[in-house]
């Protein structure tokens, strides 16, 4: 005689140790197995797109920090490139290099959190998380040195960056670049070949290439599915065409591939940083931009390769000092499109791991 069972609904979040903020999933479960999942957003909705319409072009930069708050520099970068494209502003050479240095440092810092949180979701009790936070602190120290803050940097400006780097920045960065490969090797030794981690992440949550493209997935998640698509290479913004680096891709598109791609991208970012530091020219750091930018009537869409994926800003100008419409293409939100397909049929423990491997920030989802 078969037991009569019925599925039950489990609310994972908004307050849950591994939903990375105030994200909520409504999971329909059959025992341990997730039958269906529905993401519920909006617990951190602040209406940033509406706020942008009430601020000047320059005054919106501090608010972009609050989107993906663990990769603020990338948000600044995406926004200022959009304004510069809209207004046709040229950026001095040195500022471009400084922006690239900051963006790549920020990428490493964001991946450190992404990987650490992913391993923590796998159940490694905070050890990788704390090791990776230790290295992130070193990057954050550098950011603090140039911008004065540790989380919301607000460093880039329309037409350049806010200030030149201090004298002690480059030696410290040099030291960091020398040490970081050793730290990454240490992470590899810690868990990369761990049998339990392999069992927990290999073959779990496979996202096929076709599905990934169809769902508009971007960033490391797309590359883990075997698509060699990196906006830095495909559509080089700023000065990324001057650097030599590879695009690490996965083969299967499972959680382990996503983890591996992030680790490999950290090494590539270090390569870019080495080149950028070697080529760093001297000169002005900010072009002559009026205090209140008035771009001509028109619209512009720019996208950059943020740590989470394709971060785009769609700006519409009506020749006033504030954007008429500012739309943010949030990689975190769009990457979650495939979550339901990836999670269905797996156990709840896998659901958490798959969710962690996508790497979201709720500030960017809800905006």
């Amino acid at each position, binding site marked *: 005689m078969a037991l009569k069972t019925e599925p039950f609904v489990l609310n994972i979040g908004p307050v849950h140790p591994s939903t990375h903020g105030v994200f909520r999933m409504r999971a329909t479960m059959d025992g341990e197995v997730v039958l269906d999942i529905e993401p519920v*957003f*909006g617990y951190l*909705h602040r*209406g940033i*797109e*509406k706020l942008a319409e009430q601020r000047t072009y320059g005054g919106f930069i501090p608010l972009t920090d609050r989107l993906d708050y663990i990769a603020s520099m990338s948000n600044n970068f995406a926004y200022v490139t959009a304004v510069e494209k809209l207004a046709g502003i040229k950026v001095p050479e040195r500022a471009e290099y400084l922006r690239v240095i900051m963006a790549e440092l920020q990428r490493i810092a964001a991946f450190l959190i992404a990987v650490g949180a992913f391993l923590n979701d796998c159940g490694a009790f905070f050890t990788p998380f704390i090791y990776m936070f230790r290295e992130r602190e070193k990057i954050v120290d550098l950011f603090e040195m140039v911008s004065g803050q540790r989380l919301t940097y607000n460093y880039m400006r329309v037409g350049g960056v806010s200030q030149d780097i201090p004298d002690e920045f480059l030696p410290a960065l040099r030291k960091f670049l020398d040490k970081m490969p050793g730290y990454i090797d240490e992470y590899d030794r810690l868990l990369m070949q761990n049998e339990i981690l392999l069992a927990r992440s290999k073959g779990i949550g496979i996202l096929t290439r076709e*599905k990934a*493209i*169809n*769902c*508009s*997935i971007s960033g490391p998640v797309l590359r883990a599915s075997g*698509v060699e*698509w990196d906006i830095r290479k*495909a*559509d*080089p913004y700023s000065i990324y*065409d001057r650097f030599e680096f590879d695009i690490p891709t996965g083969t299967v598109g499972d959680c382990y591939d996503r983890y591996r791609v992030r680790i490999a991208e950290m090494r590539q970012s270090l390569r870019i940083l080495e080149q950028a530091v070697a080529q760093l020219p001297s000169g002005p750091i900010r072009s002559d931009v009026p205090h209140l930018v008035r771009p001509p009537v028109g*619209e512009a*869409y720019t*996208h950059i390769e943020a740590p989470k994926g*394709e971060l*785009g800003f*769609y700006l*519409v100008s009506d020749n006033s000092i504030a954007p*008429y*419409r500012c*739309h943010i*293409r949030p990689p975190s*939100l*769009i990457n*979650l*499109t*495939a979550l339901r397909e990836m999670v269905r049929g797996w156990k709840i423990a896998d659901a958490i791991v798959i969710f962690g491997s996508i790497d979201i920030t709720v500030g960017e989802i*809800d*905006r």
Partner: protein
Amino acid sequence: MTRTLSGKDIAGQLEEKFPGSIVESNQAHLIVKSEVLPDTLRFLKETAGLDFNYLNHITAVDYYQYFEVVYQLSSLEHNHTTVVKARCYDRENPSLPSVIGIWQGADFQEREIYDLMGINFTGHPNMKRIFLWEDFQGHPLRKDYL
């Protein structure tokens, strides 16, 4: 470098297949009639040589007289991109056909536009508010929302 296909070139191809579907086309974008929007977008996705298989983003802009919905399309194979727009003039009850059958990535973005701009995407299986709560009044990103 990603090539931007001009709206005019694509408009020519579209006009052959769907006569009278193009409202306006220029260097930067093309605007199609909202009734034939899914057909034209499917054509753009599936025609060899265009292959717009990647939907970068969807957004909507409120121009008081009409809402403009912007589709930014890319092709990962050919590395080119274009912008397709559609307009809906009904301010009380704007609606557009959904493209979720063509690109699944439109799912949350269409819901977001519905939530914040109030454009109803017909054919979307789960058309409800995404960020705000269910009985919220109004659509905040509209220009007349205060």
